[in-house]
């Protein structure tokens, strides 16, 4: 079976071109064509790349008897949803790299242009183009079928799809620069795709999907409060909570409820619950850090990624104090993947700043700046470092080595 993405879309466009140039045939049945053509053109203009055409039916567009019914069939709501789900499974095939999966989804399922994807990823068009070409090549060469995987394989494949959707969401949510409008759209699209899966009758195990949906909605509801008017990033503590999107937040809570009857707790369940604690706190000061720390304890049992470990340390600092959290981070420094992770040092610096130890904080920030991969992050950290140095110059804090070596 051929993949829809190139072949089928082309054949539909070809059919319509043919109709357009050739005009309505002399024989009376021509008007059947016209009906089908106008309908198809209207819908295609509206939907653009938002959907794919399933290859089994595309050739039926070329017959006078079947063109009309085939168009109706292709554009029935259910078929559109089925196709999008099939496309998700195809794009998220394990043999395609995660980067390419995300680019492919944005292009084929969300209708983003290559420049838009490049902007969202802070990279250039050529780079995105390469990723797409590689992914399509892989799909052709590996003959990845355009289908919802049957039976048992669907469960593990679904996990990959959810991981990719979460990755997509985080691409939109976490980076500190790029066009805001596009980044927010990326988040919305991730939510939309998860909603399609959650609503689909062929997917049986829904608890994890609801949890992921809840997580993305609860986080998204704070999207607009995360920057001040000058575009500076605000921490949760600094955010104006009246800017939160409470309608979206409510949907998140509803989905979190739906996700709970389960005997298989996923990372999405835990992360969504943590997010819900932040959302339900009346203010930063009244956040229930104890419960959040317990949740992070459970999280690191199933996911000991650097981000999870660092976030746990933050929660630990709120419950046990910065000193204990620093000791914890110093232990984590021995883990190879964390040793070179700039955020470890950035978080450590935050703890020192919280204890007014600006010299120590400056040391850590210096390390973080050396390791940070993105310009935007370096600028953010350098600002912090400048603040620390200013505090040190006020004279009530002992100078640190790195401060002296910097010579200002």
């Amino acid at each position, binding site marked *: 079976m051929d993949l829809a993405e190139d072949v089928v879309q082309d054949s539909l466009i070809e059919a319509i071109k043919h109709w357009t140039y050739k005009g309505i045939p002399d*024989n009376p049945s021509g008007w059947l064509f016209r009906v089908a053509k106008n309908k198809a053109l209207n819908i295609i203009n509206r939907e653009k790349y938002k959907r794919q055409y399933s290859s089994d039916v595309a050739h039926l567009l070329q017959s*006078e*008897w079947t063109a009309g019914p*085939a168009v109706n069939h292709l554009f029935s709501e259910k078929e559109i949803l089925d196709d999008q789900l099939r496309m998700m499974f195809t794009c998220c095939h394990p043999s395609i790299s995660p980067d390419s999966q995300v680019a492919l989804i944005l292009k084929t399922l969300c209708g983003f242009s290559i420049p838009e994807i490049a902007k969202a990823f802070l990279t250039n068009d050529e780079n995105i183009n390469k990723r797409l070409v590689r992914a399509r090549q892989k799909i052709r060469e590996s003959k990845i079928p355009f289908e919802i995987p049957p039976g048992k394989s669907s469960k593990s494949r679904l996990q990959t799809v959810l991981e990719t959707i979460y990755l997509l969401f985080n691409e939109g949510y976490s980076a500190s620069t790029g066009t805001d409008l596009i980044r927010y759209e990326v988040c919305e699209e991730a939510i939309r795709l998860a909603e399609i899966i959650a609503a689909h009758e062929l997917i049986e195990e829904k608890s994890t999907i609801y949890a992921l949906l809840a997580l993305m909605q609860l986080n998204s509801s704070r999207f607009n409060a995360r920057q001040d008017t000058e575009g500076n990033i605000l921490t949760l503590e600094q955010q104006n909570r009246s800017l939160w999107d409470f309608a979206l937040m409510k949907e998140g809570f509803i989905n979190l409820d739906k996700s709970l009857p389960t005997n298989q707790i996923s990372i999405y369940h835990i992360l969504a619950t943590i997010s819900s604690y932040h959302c339900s706190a009346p203010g930063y000061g009244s956040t229930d850090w104890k419960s959040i720390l317990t949740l992070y304890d459970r999280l690191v049992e199933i996911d000991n990624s650097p981000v999870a470990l660092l976030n746990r340390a933050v929660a630990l600092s709120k419950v046990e104090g910065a000193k204990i959290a620093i000791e914890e981070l110093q232990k984590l420094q021995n883990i190879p993947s964390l040793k070179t992770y700039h955020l470890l040092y950035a978080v450590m610096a935050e703890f020192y700043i919280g204890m007014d130890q600006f010299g120590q904080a400056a040391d850590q920030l210096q390390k973080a700046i050396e390791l940070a991969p993105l310009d935007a992050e370096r600028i953010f950290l350098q600002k912090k470092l400048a603040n620390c140095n200013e505090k040190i110059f006020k004279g009530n804090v002992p100078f640190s080595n790195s401060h002296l070596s910097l010579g200002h």
Partner: protein
Amino acid sequence: MKDFLLILKTEGSVWTDLSPEQLQKHIENGGAYIGNLIKEGILKNANPIGKGSRLISESNGVLKDGPFNESKEVVAGYFHIVAKDMDEAVAIAKANPIFNDLPTKIEVHPMMAVQGI
């Protein structure tokens, strides 16, 4: 699943022998029938057959090609469908609403397609 070729033969043509109202209804019913075959994954292909068919025949070692003599019966078109067996294919053919509109015959031929490709 097996492949079947359904050949439709009608007396007269829907385009000339039906009133505009009947034609409208014919198109609606036919569209619904075909739409359902698509939805159920039964239909592989279907095409109407136009005017001007030719017939090639051999007689005494000579190939002749001449007009396809259609008396009052015309070959209206074909359906290529998949069905579990001949009985199911026959039932699918019987459901064609063309039977309400014109005197119709449908030939149901089992195709010897290679399975599993």
